[in-house]
């Protein structure tokens, strides 16, 4: 108890603990390359970092150091390197999507159950043009080379945002809980359409999917390995976090929350309901679209099975688990769920499989944890809805400094223009 208090208030002690933790866990990973645990421990240092009381710049600095240098380097010494970085890359992809869905569900209070559709739109946007697929309906100049990837990152983002708006215009007039079902329907429609759009003109190659998607390249350097994609994803993710942090405590973010809290009062305050919701849809969708482009480029093959309802629900679980409306929360939620999905469940399944083989225990295939996704997701959804609807890291409201607000004269405060907005980002 004493120790906990001490740790809570003493930043020096925190610094020492964190440094020790990072050194020990990265050393563990460096020397014991096969240890998934060590890898996860290094990742977890970001969570510890979040819990410290350092100021914002320091936190960002240390965080970047860990993610850009320490993690890739210490993981790079063994055969498992690519698989680690694959997990880390997927964590990044899902974190960005969860942040996007969090805007829609957590901030604006709109239950979107077809969110994966925007991811699909981003993916297909790049896949169609980065393969010969586009020759089916355009002059024969495709596939585009991987250097177009960067432009398509923007195009995919825009397409997803536009799809968000086009969907939103009719759908956002629909009242509250109906929205859930309409978006669910929309997600299915998009999947069915992509699944069947190989005729009359072959846009998507239907259920066969699109293969051999050009990997991104820049100045002749090609990104093919997960360890390389990791940096692309990290870059986009930083941008996403940055953007959402800016929005969260701005006029726009406040409008979202006002609409979530009380639509009628929000309107009475002059807020244009549909426009505000559309903005949430579009911004959320755009993050998903960007990651869709990355996903297509990374996998080099996509088909409609990657974009099912289960994916939409997965992202919803991430948001609810982490904490609706809470950016640090959904980052944690997305990381936990992705690691659980990609790493823990497969590891446990393999381990049980081995035990099975050795005849230690006999566990039927039906019990295989890798198949239990739906049950686990379902349990998390129900349990968190009932017992902890605010999630692991509940959303925080900004804390305004009364002294700064008391001052009447703006000029005197020109220096302090970094108001609550900043102090909140620090929090």
């Amino acid at each position, binding site marked *: 108890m004493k120790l906990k208090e001490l740790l809570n208030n003493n930043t020096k002690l925190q610094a020492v603990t964190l440094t020790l933790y990072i050194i020990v866990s990265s050393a563990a990973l460096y020397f014991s390359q096969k240890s998934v645990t060590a890898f996860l421990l290094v990742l977890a240092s970001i969570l510890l970092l979040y819990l410290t009381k350092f100021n914002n710049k320091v936190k960002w600095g240390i965080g970047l150091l860990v993610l850009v240098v320490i993690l890739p380097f210490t993981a790079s010494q063994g055969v498992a390197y690519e698989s680690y970085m694959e997990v880390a890359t997927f964590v990044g992809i899902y974190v960005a999507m969860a942040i996007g869905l969090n805007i829609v569900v957590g901030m604006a209070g709109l239950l979107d159950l077809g969110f994966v559709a925007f991811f699909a739109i981003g993916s297909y946007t790049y896949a169609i043009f980065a393969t010969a697929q586009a020759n089916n309906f355009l002059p024969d100049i495709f596939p585009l080379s991987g250097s177009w990837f960067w432009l398509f990152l923007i195009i995919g983002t825009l397409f997803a945002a536009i799809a968000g708006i086009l969907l939103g215009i009719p759908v956002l007039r629909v009242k509250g809980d109906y929205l859930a079902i309409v978006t669910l329907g929309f997600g299915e429609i998009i999947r069915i359409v992509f699944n069947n759009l190989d005729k009359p003109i072959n846009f998507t190659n239907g259920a066969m999917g699109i293969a051999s998607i050009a990997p991104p390249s820049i100045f002749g350097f090609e990104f093919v390995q997960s360890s390389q994609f990791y940096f692309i994803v990290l870059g986009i993710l930083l941008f996403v976090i940055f953007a959402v942090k800016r929005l969260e405590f701005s006029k726009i973010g406040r409008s979202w*929350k006002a609409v979530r809290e009380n639509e009628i009062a929000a309107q*009475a305050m002059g807020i244009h309901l549909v426009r505000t919701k559309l903005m949430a849809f579009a911004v959320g969708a755009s993050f998903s679209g960007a990651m869709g482009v990355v996903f297509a480029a990374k996998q080099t093959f996509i088909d409609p099975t990657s974009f099912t309802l289960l994916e939409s629900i997965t992202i919803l679980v991430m948001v609810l688990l982490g904490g609706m409306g809470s950016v640090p929360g959904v980052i944690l939620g997305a990381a936990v769920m992705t690691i659980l999905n990609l790493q823990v469940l497969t590891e446990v399944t393999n381990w049980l499989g081995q035990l099975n083989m050795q005849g230690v225990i006999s566990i039927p295939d039906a019990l295989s944890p890798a198949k239990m996704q739906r049950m686990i997701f379902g349990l998390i959804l129900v349990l968190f809805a009932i017992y902890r609807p605010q999630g692991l890291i509940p959303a925080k409201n900004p804390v305004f400094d009364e002294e700064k607000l008391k001052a009447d004269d703006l000029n005197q405060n020109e220096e302090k223009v970094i108001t609550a907005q900043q102090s909140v980002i620090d929090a």
Partner: protein
Amino acid sequence: MNVLEVSNLTKKFGGLVAVNGVDLNVKKGSITAVIGPNGAGKTTFFNMITGVYTPDGGSIKSNGKDITGSKPHEVTKNGIARTFQNIRLFGNITVLENVLVGMHTHLKGDLVGTLLGLPYIHKEELKAEQEAYRLLKYVGLETLLNEDATNLSYGAQRRLEIARALATKPTILLLDEPAAGMNPRETVELTDLIKKMREELNLTIVLIEHDMKLVMGISEHIVVLDHGEKIAEGKPSDIRSNTKVIEAYLGKSAVGH
């Protein structure tokens, strides 16, 4: 001069005529009270003025502009603000943020500027925060600025609704039972606040209220609704002695006494 002209306003819910051909002219700078028994149609009347319900007949003009059938956010931009009978605050954000939302129509806060963190965004935010703080002080809630709105007491929530409405910089303020649930001391404070707002902020105020002491003490003009119809209108002294009004409130038998 009339800042609000309502004529022949009508609203039906299925077979029920909640408001039936009501006229009302509100003078600039006046305090008008709308009274009547429960279910008389008072709130429905407000809801039509503020665009929450679309009228089935009649017209509404504010500041010379026809706003019949306008959307709520358009009505607000035209200078009409309101509070709600069943308090509608943004419960899970802070008190100061509630007021900030009220200021949104006067903030630019565009997407590009916000994402790029441009200086004018910071500047207008700071200004808005200071203004919001001033408004909180005006209604006496400044010490609670960082509290979540749901955590406030009933009376404080009603005052926060007023502060939030003021933040839209209205010319006309509609208050729906502002004293409901307040204790006598709070009611007196509220009465002073309403008078002060009218004097200092150049407001025209229309209020619905069941507390007759408050109504009689504060308003220059009173309109009485019953079963959706306007049954009387005039100065407080006229209304006090109007037999129709007494009937409406107490039933026919009471008039004889």
